[in-house]
């Protein structure tokens, strides 16, 4: 077990290193960021000074090593307006995190019952409906859904606020817009997991001993089928970080996605770089935790290869 954990953690660290490297060099492909912060007529000594204070005059590999050294200390550098990037991102994290949870809730409330029903009534009308909803979930662009939601429920019916984070009701529309895209995957995975479980001997056994159908499905079926669904739901958090750029932009939601887009517009590299690294870190950590939990639960995984 210790060996498996060490190996798996090592893999995650390598992935992080690769990402940090990719991001560092990608961001520096551009021209000189100092030019964007200062007007064209800025005196050359001023430009040189700013470049020096921001460390942009040092050789690229020195910048790179410094960057890695900072990363280890959870220091993402300073934003171009002087605030530490970590602070900027942590300021925006609660809005994104709570929205992601809300979106997950919305997606699960729609997808899990639908997945179960379509597995239980396989080949029926419900199954067709579930399949259609899954297809629709994959096909509707979230930004478009977002503005249609604003149009219908925000403007025409005026049920919910359409911009900003002002209270519980302000979560409704962005959570739907963000969660909708996840419905497709969740329905599929719930359905297939449920079908697999229902084909097992203990379900036949439970039925044979005369338990009511509902109890068979919920207590014996769902409880066993839910594990892959939870795994998938965990990974969705990564997808939501990504989707946050689009949805937060439409709803003027003060989260990481909007902060990233704003930072990109003024070429505030450290912030953009930090946001990409942070969301990759989330994704990798969740993946790692899921894999380790699996290994705890299922010894076969520990000993493979």
């Amino acid at each position, binding site marked *: 077990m210790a060996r498996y954990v060490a190996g798996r953690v090592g*893999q995650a660290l390598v992935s992080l290193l690769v990402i940090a490297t990719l991001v560092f060099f990608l961001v520096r492909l*551009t021209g000189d960021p100092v030019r964007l912060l200062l007007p064209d007529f800025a005196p050359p000594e001023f430009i040189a000074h700013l470049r020096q204070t921001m460390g942009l005059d040092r050789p690229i590999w020195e910048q790179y090593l410094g960057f890695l050294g900072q990363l280890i200390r959870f220091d993402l550098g300073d934003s171009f307006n002087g605030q530490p990037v970590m602070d900027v991102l942590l300021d925006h994290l609660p809005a994104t995190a709570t929205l992601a949870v809300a979106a997950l809730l919305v997606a699960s409330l729609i997808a899990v019952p639908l997945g179960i029903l379509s597995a239980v009534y396989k080949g029926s009308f419900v199954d067709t409906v579930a399949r259609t909803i899954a297809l629709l979930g*994959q*096909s509707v*662009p979230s930004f478009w859904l977002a503005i249609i939601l604003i*149009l219908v429920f925000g403007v025409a019916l005026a049920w919910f606020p359409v911009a900003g984070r002002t209270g519980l009701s302000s979560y409704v529309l962005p959570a739907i817009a963000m969660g909708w895209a996840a419905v497709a995957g969740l329905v599929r995975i719930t359905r297939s997991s449920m079908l697999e479980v229902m084909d097992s001997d203990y379900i036949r056994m439970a039925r044979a001993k005369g338990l009511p159908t509902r109890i068979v499905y919920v207590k014996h079926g769902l409880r066993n089928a839910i594990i892959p669904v939870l795994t998938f739901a965990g990974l969705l958090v990564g997808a939501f970080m990504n989707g946050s*750029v689009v949805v937060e932009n439409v709803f003027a939601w003060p989260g990481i996605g909007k902060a*990233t887009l704003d930072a*990109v517009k003024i070429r505030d590299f450290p912030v953009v770089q930090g946001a990409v690294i942070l969301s*990759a870190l989330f994704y990798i950590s969740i993946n790692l935790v899921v894999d380790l939990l699996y290994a705890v639960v299922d010894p076969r995984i520990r000993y493979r290869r």
Partner: protein
Amino acid sequence: MIAHWPTALRTGGTRARRGARLLRETPMIPLAIIGVIVLGAIFAPFLAPYDPVKIDLTHALKPPFFQEGGSTAHLLGTDKLGRDVLSRLIYGGRISLVVAGAVIVVGGGIGTFLGLISGYSARRLDAVIQRGVEAVLSLPTIMVALVFVYVVGQSLLSVILVLSPFIAARFTRMVRGDVLRIREHNYVALARVAGASDARIIFRHILPNVASTIIVIATLEIGAIILVEASLSFLGVGVPAPTPAWGLMIADGREYLSTKYWMSLFPGLAIMATVLSINWIGDWLRDILDPKRQFV
């Protein structure tokens, strides 16, 4: 298992009857929709009633024909600059299809190659490729695309370049999985015994057997690419304006949403219809080509 395979796959019946069944289960509607969009994109200069970028302020913000004030001169109305929405919609299909096609060819090609190598080769090379794949897959696509497009400039090419690695990573992972299974088959061992080179085994014996997987992933990924491209255009970092792209049209219409809905509604419907049809076709292809991975 057999019970929920599509009926076309069930054995039995004459060849003709099986053929008839296959035809019956072919998704005609999505194929027709994709056909219309592809033809529209190819023959856009002949089909579009107006120049998609021509500004005509005297006819700005005209509603579609079915609404009061609309006319058949502009079937789907005009936008704030008086550009014909229908014409922009027809041309917009070009951007979506070109991006999707190019990314599938570039990303899918690289991904297939890496997947074959990764699945076939020794542990060390495989591990290196897989770490790379993991790293790419854990990056947030849209955030990276935002950075990349701002850095290298907005163009069709930069959108294609930034999306390709993500698609390549997904192809690599899927193809590798298939190769790991296929290389255990006896015919691979026999080919080796017969003295075939690694390259020959990979491309002559393994590749044809992963072809169906590749076709299925390619179809399903096209839908995903179109959505991401539209998101980038919507955020203002896709293909530069005034080129008509569907995502850009939705963004343009956003401020007029409550009164002039048509500017955003129609391109949204176009994206949805296209992606829905492609996914539908993809699901169908998966059913007939790759029964193990169907909508189980």
